C-alpha cells in the first residue's frame, strides 16, 4: 500500500504541544517534556520527551531545524501506518525517521516487530531490521493478503 508519507515535506510548519519546555537559545536546543505531541503535515509524532535541535538565523526570522530526538513511548502515526518504539530520531535534512527499541510497525493488516526501523520520507518505505541480541534478532512479522473481491 502506498504510504501517505511518501515525499513528505520535512520543511513544512511543525506544531508541538507539551507540559514543559526548556529553551536553551545558546546551544540551539529546545527540550519538551510531558505528553509531547508533534504534528507536521500528515504525520503525528508523540513521546514523553523531545529535543529539537535548531539554529536561529539572524537575517530571516525562520530557524533552521536540523533534528528532533524523541524518547519514551515514541509513536509515529499517519493515515496509512503507525509505528512505535522506545526512542526516535527525525533527521529533517536527510528526510529520515529512525525508531528504535522494541519497534512495532503496522501498515494496513500487516504487523512487523523488530529492534530498529528506518522510515524513508522520500520513498515512503520502512526498513526494519532485527539486530543481534534480544530474542533471536530475527524480524518477526505477519502479513495478510487482502481478500480477493469476489
Amino acid at each position, binding site marked *: 500500500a502506498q504510504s501517505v508519507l511518501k515525499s513528505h515535506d520535512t520543511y513544512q510548519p*511543525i506544531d*508541538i504541544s507539551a507540559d*514543559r519546555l526548556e529553551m536553551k537559545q545558546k546551544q540551539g536546543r529546545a527540550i519538551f517534556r510531558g505528553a509531547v505531541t508533534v504534528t507536521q503535515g500528515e504525520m503525528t509524532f508523540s513521546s514523553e520527551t523531545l529535543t529539537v535541535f535548531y539554529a536561529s538565523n539572524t537575517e530571516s526570522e525562520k530557524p533552521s531545524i536540523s533534528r528532533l530526538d524523541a524518547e519514551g513511548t515514541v509513536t509515529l502515526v499517519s493515515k496509512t501506518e503507525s509505528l512505535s518504539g522506545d526512542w526516535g530520531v527525525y533527521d529533517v535534512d536527510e528526510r529520515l525517521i529512525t525508531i528504535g527499541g522494541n519497534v512495532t510497525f503496522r501498515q494496513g493488516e500487516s504487523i512487523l516487530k523488530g529492534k530498529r526501523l528506518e522510515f524513508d520520507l522520500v520513498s515512503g518505505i520502512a526498513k526494519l531490521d532485527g539486530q543481534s541480541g534480544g530474542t533471536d534478532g530475527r524480524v518477526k512479522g505477519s502479513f495478510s493478503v487482502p481478500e480477493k473481491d469476489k
Partner: protein
Amino acid sequence: MASTKDISTASGEKNWDRFIVLMQVILPLAALVLGTITVLWPFLNDQEVSFTLSTEDVAQGDTAVHMTNLHYVGTDAINRLFHVEAATGLQENPSSPRVRLNDIRAEMALDETGPAKVQARTGIYRTKENTLSLVGGVHFNTGSGYKLDMAGAEIDLKKHIATGQGAIQGSSKLGTLEANRIVIYADTEEAVFEGGIKLHIEPKRPENN
C-alpha cells in the same frame, strides 16, 4: 366766634399736631440708626459671617510622595546598567523602600545580546532589592529574541531573572508560543515554560529544495 365746622376740624388739627411732633423725633432717629448701620456694615459683616473650623474633620497631613516622570538607574553586580522609568509614582512616605508605579518601562543591559526590555501598566518597585512586581499588560522584549505578553511578572533587575504568568503569548527565535508560566534567565538566554505549551515552528527551507 368759631363755626361748628371749625370745632370738628380743631380736634383733627390737634391729632395732626401730635403726629408732627412725634415724627419730628422718630424720623431723625431712624435716619441716624440707618446711617450708622450702613457705615459700619462691613465691620459688622465680618463678625457675623466668620466661622470656626472644628479640629476633628481636618484630614491627616498627607505624607505620601507623589512623583511624575520617575527614572531610577542602577547597576548590577558587575556594573551593567539597568533603569526603570514610570509616568507616575507614589511612595507612602519618603523613606519607604516601595514605590507604586504606573505606565512602567524597565531595561536591563546584557552582555552578549541586546538589552532586555519590559513594559507594564502598573507595578511596585522595591528600591532596596531592586525588584519589580508588574501587573497588567506586561510586555517582554529580550535581546535573545523573546517578545512575550503576559498578565503579570516579577523581575529581578540585578540577577536579570524574570518570572511571568497568566496567558503568556508571543514569539521566540524558534517560533510563536503559548504557556501558563515562564522563567527567563536573560544572561544565559535560557527560558523555562510550563503549563499548556504550544509552539508553532516555521522551519527555514534550504535553497536547493
